[in-house]
């Protein structure tokens, strides 16, 4: 394949060399994204590989409106969901959190604080397991947003770009996910210091 060039002779932003560099720069994070959606290492690997194949096919259509990294993340996101569906697994990542602002979801409620001495909150095996359990009890979209934002440290605009959601919507999912997790983990941490 010849390297696609723009009409003005400059290298196309998504040519083979650019994709090779993107694999170096973003490979781990692309795989991490796929893994967080599919929860399956084999499916995640397939999603990333298929995403690069698709990116190669669509290279000439890439206009450079977003970074190549964001573009690849979007493709991995779509591929991951497509693979889940193809295998008959539910991909409930629709924007399903319909709680209205001001509803019970957005009130302080009765969740106790974690009340512990300084440095008591450590990421040991039990806490890791408690966090994993809690993550299964929030909505899939809250979980994905929370993990992309808090675990992977992506900024809100990047998460919005990957999920094709307005940044404000990302913040709502993030906020509700964080608050629910705080409540779900309260017993764990209070028990740890009881």
């Amino acid at each position, binding site marked *: 394949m010849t390297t696609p060039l723009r009409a003005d002779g400059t290298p196309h932003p998504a040519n083979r060399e650019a994709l090779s560099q993107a694999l170096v720069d973003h490979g781990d994070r692309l795989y991490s994204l796929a893994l967080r959606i599919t929860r399956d290492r084999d499916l995640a690997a397939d999603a990333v590989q298929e995403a690069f194949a698709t990116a190669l096919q669509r290279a000439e259509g890439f206009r450079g409106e977003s970074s190549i990294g964001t573009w690849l993340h979007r493709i991995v996101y779509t591929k991951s969901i497509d693979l889940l569906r193809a295998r008959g697994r539910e991909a409930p990542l629709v924007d399903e959190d319909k709680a209205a602002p001001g509803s019970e979801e*957005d009130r302080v409620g009765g969740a106790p604080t974690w009340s512990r001495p300084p440095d008591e909150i450590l990421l040991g095996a039990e806490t890791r397991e408690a966090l994993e359990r809690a993550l299964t009890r929030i909505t899939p979209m809250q979980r994905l947003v*929370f993990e992309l934002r808090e675990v992977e440290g992506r900024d809100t605009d990047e998460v919005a770009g990957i999920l094709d959601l307005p940044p404000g919507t990302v913040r709502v999912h993030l906020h509700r996910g964080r608050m629910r997790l705080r409540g779900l983990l309260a017993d764990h941490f209070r028990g740890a210091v009881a």
Partner: protein
Amino acid sequence: MTCDELYRRLTDHEEGVLDGNVCQEVERHLAECQSCHEIRHDLQDLSRLCREQASVELPVGVRRRIEGLLDSTA
């Protein structure tokens, strides 16, 4: 600002998207309300715990297959 109002704004506050006046109200409330201060502390601990989780790496075999795919089209 009530506790419920603060509760709804905590994430926006940390994201830096609140207007200046609202931001000041949040700060004032947090300084005066121990309960809300502890909620923010919990959320900060939650963020810290998450950041301590091990990062994920693309398996070497997958990386090589993709490199092969890109090389084969050169």
